[in-house]
């Protein structure tokens, strides 16, 4: 009862309350919904703690069993400890804490993002092939957008940016709208299933 029925009842009541709050203006109902929304940031803050505990469990297991790349996990623990210690002792606005971001995290993150350019170049050369009508159409569209989005495209033709913009605004937009509307309907149906208790994966990990 406490393990399944109570959480399902709470989900149903809170779910219905939040849906009604959006459409109906009743002061007591709107105040209750606002209070629940105020709790949410607090509740979700605990995700940082559970996430960290999970990270520690996964990586300590890798180190214990000397799995391939275990030293990366050791490096993770070292930097996790350094970040937490500096953050807790000096505060997140301290120059030393900012140093970790400005001189370590940001250069590493930018390097990781920048490296994709090399892989994209190599992958485009090997995989972007005009093997049939569909792939040829994709290839031509991609080439026009690639040229139109950089100044060299204007060097080739003044119309290139407008052509690229048209591809983005018309054919791309049509596809994106279909995706947005379909995912929106799917999202609504999933929410309804959770509210009425048909989807119980969040309770036990099983349907």
């Amino acid at each position, binding site marked *: 009862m406490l393990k399944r029925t109570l959480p399902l009842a709470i989900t149903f009541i809170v779910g219905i309350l939040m849906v009604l709050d959006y459409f109906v203006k009743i002061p007591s109902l709107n105040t209750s919904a606002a209070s629940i929304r105020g709790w949410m940031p607090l509740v979700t803050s605990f995700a940082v703690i559970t996430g960290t505990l999970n990270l520690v469990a996964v990586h300590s297991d890798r180190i214990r069993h000397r799995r391939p790349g275990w030293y990366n996990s050791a490096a993770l623990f070292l930097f996790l400890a350094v970040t937490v210690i500096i953050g807790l002792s000096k505060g997140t606005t301290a120059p030393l804490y*900012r140093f970790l971001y400005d001189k370590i995290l940001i250069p590493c993150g930018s390097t*990781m993002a920048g490296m994709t350019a090399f892989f994209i170049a190599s992958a485009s050369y090997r995989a972007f*092939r005009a093997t049939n009508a569909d792939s040829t159409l994709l290839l031509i569209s991609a080439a026009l957008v690639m040229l139109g989005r*950089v100044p060299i*495209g204007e060097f080739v033709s003044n119309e290139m940016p407008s052509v690229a913009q048209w591809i983005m605004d018309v054919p791309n937009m049509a596809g994106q709208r279909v995706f947005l509307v379909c995912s929106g309907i799917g999202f609504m149906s999933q929410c309804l299933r959770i509210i009425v208790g048909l989807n119980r994966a969040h309770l036990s990990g099983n349907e």
Partner: protein
Amino acid sequence: MEVLERIKSINPRIIYVLILVVIAIPLIKPFGLPMMVMQPSKDFYDVVESLKPGARVMISWDYGAGSDVELDPIAKSLLIHLVKKGAKIYATSSIPDGPMFAERSLKVLESLNQQYGSDYVNLGFFAGGESGIAAWAENFESVFRTDWRKTPAAQIPMMEGIKSAKDFDLIVTLNTGPGGYGTPDVWVRQIYVAKNVPLAMGVTAIMGPQTMPYLQSHQIAGLLVGLRSAAEYEALLRAPGIATAQMDAQSAAHTVILILIILGNLGHLADKKHRRKTSK
């Protein structure tokens, strides 16, 4: 024919070196290629231009280290423009790393003689993603009781009179998309749809196609996409910066990638012809 067959199997290391060289040269010595300003950037510029002095603008730094290269130039250009318009700037973030990136971008305000607390403030990270946005959009104090430096909101002069999202003249999210806590669709739902507050976005180039429908449906007032838009915004402000310099590098990289695609396809065609001949 043999040459065409060979070009379909260029060593990836040669491609990596080629890309490195063509990106490095324009970064060291920019070509200064002229660039047209597209309509979405002009529209975003006009939205900021229409703000009255003292307008309250919230900007959310919803990105991490991987997107800093693309979104920081957008943030800096936007901040310079907002200062020119005399707007009050409220920085926040829906991801834990965000306030650090906000601090980096906000440094530009110090050089423009802006005072912390009266001209701009960093409110830090708010937890909860969509729920968090919905919470402060309804009741600002329920989420933002202190700023990022732990100063109580009541002691910050520019926080006076801020009760909900409706007290802002414009809200901007600089967004990295999936993986973030407050994705573009979440902002549209909770800020534009639920509160009818003008919303604008700066997103990474990869997020452009997904966010454009919101611009066409006028659910967002402006949209800047990646480095190109940042460079266009710098052109509109007549203040060429890092984005303008990086566009030359992007031009060179795109050209090389296109040449490689053409070579790959020529090699593929040659291989096809060769196979047909041998099968006969």
